[in-house]
């Protein structure tokens, strides 16, 4: 069946281990994702320091942070070219991410991956990031199979946009994940547009969740702008995946605050629609909730923001100080050597 996560109550806080410390951690992560992207935007558009495609995660912070915080640190992720947020939420150090975006050898992928593959950092379980829409889902199936086969307690979470659900890779992957009962959590981040194409002009079914249900997969519709909803839904699904190898599909309803990539102003979107969604800013709403619930004060939130800002500035400094890999060395990365 398809379930919809309702508002997470304060009672859930204790049931789901949402201590003040954890809630503060989540807010700090969300702020980190936001400020990182705002800095990237500035480096591209104002300073001209970065070039190439860069797909910002602005407005979707609640999904990566809610999911990653609920997952075990050793769980794995397979994500996409809109992956700065996934990387940071999965503990890829911001300075490595920044250096990767600058194309420096000090980046996590030595500057050979770039923005679209910055979420590749297996040390923290940030296993894979692909720039081909939909292609991560079959790979997540294989990762899930591998974990199950090795009787690991860990699971894999894969993230993709609404555009992915119309690819063949999505359907082949969904079918196999459900058929083989693989421990995979699938997060469709429905941010309403695939580039400029709205979901209504691209998806024939009444909803994306309905499409997932057709694969006989546990399906949950989540408010993707509410970090606690994503967290709670993930906790429940991760338990099912770990104990009975049940996959779960999440349709996370959200909105990209800016356009497809850093250069896209998103002018094809109705102004009222944009304003409606900006009012649901996942960070502002979470801050308000934490103040209302007396978890944090305005002052502590300001302190968090300042400390994050410093981390970002340090990351930019680290990135600019690095150098690109010598060209002769790139050959060393094409093939893996023998054991």
């Amino acid at each position, binding site marked *: 069946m398809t379930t919809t996560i309702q508002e997470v109550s304060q009672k859930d806080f204790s049931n789901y281990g949402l201590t003040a410390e954890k809630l503060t951690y989540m807010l700090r992560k969300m702020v980190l994702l936001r400020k990182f992207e705002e800095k990237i935007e500035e480096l591209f558009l104002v300073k001209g320091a970065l070039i190439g495609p860069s797909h910002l995660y602005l407005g979707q912070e609640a999904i990566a942070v809610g999911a990653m915080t609920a997952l075990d640190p050793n769980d794995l992720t397979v994500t996409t070219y809109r992956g700065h947020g996934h990387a940071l939420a999965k503990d890829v150090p911001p300075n490595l991410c920044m250096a990767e975006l600058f194309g420096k050898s000090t980046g996590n992928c030595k500057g050979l991956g770039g923005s679209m593959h910055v979420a590749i950092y297996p040390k923290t379980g940030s296993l894979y990031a692909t720039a081909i829409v939909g*292609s991560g889902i*079959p*790979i997540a*199936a294989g990762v899930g199979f591998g974990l199950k086969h090795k009787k690991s307690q860990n699971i894999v979470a894969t993230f993709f946009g609404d555009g992915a659900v119309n690819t063949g890779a999505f359907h*082949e992957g969904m079918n196999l994940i459900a058929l083989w009962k693989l421990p995979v959590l699938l997060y469709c981040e429905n941010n309403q547009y695939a580039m400029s194409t709205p979901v209504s002009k691209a998806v024939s079914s009444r909803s994306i969740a309905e499409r997932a249900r057709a694969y006989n997969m546990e399906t949950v519709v989540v408010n993707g702008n509410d970090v606690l909803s994503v967290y709670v839904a993930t906790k429940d699904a991760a338990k099912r995946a770990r104990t009975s190898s049940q996959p779960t599909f999440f349709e996370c309803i959200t909105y990209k605050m800016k356009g497809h990539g850093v250069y896209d102003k998103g002018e094809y979107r109705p102004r009222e629609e944009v304003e409606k969604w900006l009012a649901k800013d996942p960070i502002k709403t979470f801050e308000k909730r934490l103040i209302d619930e007396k978890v944090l004060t305005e002052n502590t939130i300001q302190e968090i923001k300042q400390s994050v800002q410093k981390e970002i500035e340090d990351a930019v400094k680290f990135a600019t100080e690095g150098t690109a890999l010598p060209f002769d060395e790139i050959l*060393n990365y094409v093939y*893996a050597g023998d054991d």
Partner: protein
Amino acid sequence: MQETIKLRELSYADALREALREEMLRDPNVILLGEEIGVFNGVYKATRGLLDEFGPERVKDTPISEIVIAGAAVGMALVGLKPVAEIMYMDFLPICMDQLCTQAAKMRFMSGGQLKVPMVLRTQYSLGRQHGSQHSQFTPAWFMQVPGLKVVTAATPYDAKGLLKTAIRDNNPVLFLECGLLYRTKGPVPEEEYTIPFGKAEIKRKGEDVTIVGISRVVGEAITAATKLEEKGISAEVIDVRTLQPLDIETIIESVKRTSRLIIACDDIRTGGVGAEISATVQESAFGYLDAPIQRVACALTPIPFSPPLEHLYMPNADRIIETATNMIGK
């Protein structure tokens, strides 16, 4: 010692099967997946009996879903398994081209060396088996342009076994190209353990007047041609490249420096094919040694005709190699 090696006659399919079985026994991380490989024993029986022996967790029958066969293999490899995926016909590779070429092959590089993708993708081409345009084509050159991928062809049962074992032990994605017409051919295969290294061509026959480089099935045609050319007083050297990526161009160049003539014979389409690449590379460093333009024996730029007599004319064979060599030498 040569004398102590016990040889048996094995079919190409059984040699492949032995390689899979031995590697599965050797390494519990080796997993097979593909269409009809388990209960049906594989369309060409290269996986016969392996489901019974190793069980359904290591021999995975899949739906007809080439994208997820290749993609799942990538994922399995990322977490330490050694998947050997089977794609039933080479014509189906374009369906999973993204997973093979854009995911598996590039990820070592794009991750800055953080990831490795040790997977084998086995497939075969069925030219000469009246399978029509969509179940016959041999397109190895497409994959020679993919950095990060290794591309292997096997011309004999001996090579099929030794190269497949090497492929499974490799830490990179390997495209292992078999030939439908060869599955039932037999040849000597040692009982003892052996592997064949990648990037080492084999000189199948020594000769002085012309070098014939063969790929896969056409190696046999080249040997037949060389035998007949001998009767005409032409001494042909035959080389099986064995692996196209890495390609042992040195062995070919050394041979050309001795024979001064080169023919590349392959079941692929001539335009932009394997022969074009080898030819271009050889002339870059051995132009001065050549007594005649390099020649290619390959297929016309048309889809493969179904009609048996037309398909027969379409295919490279010993007669075409002989004719080409004779014209080059002027005898």
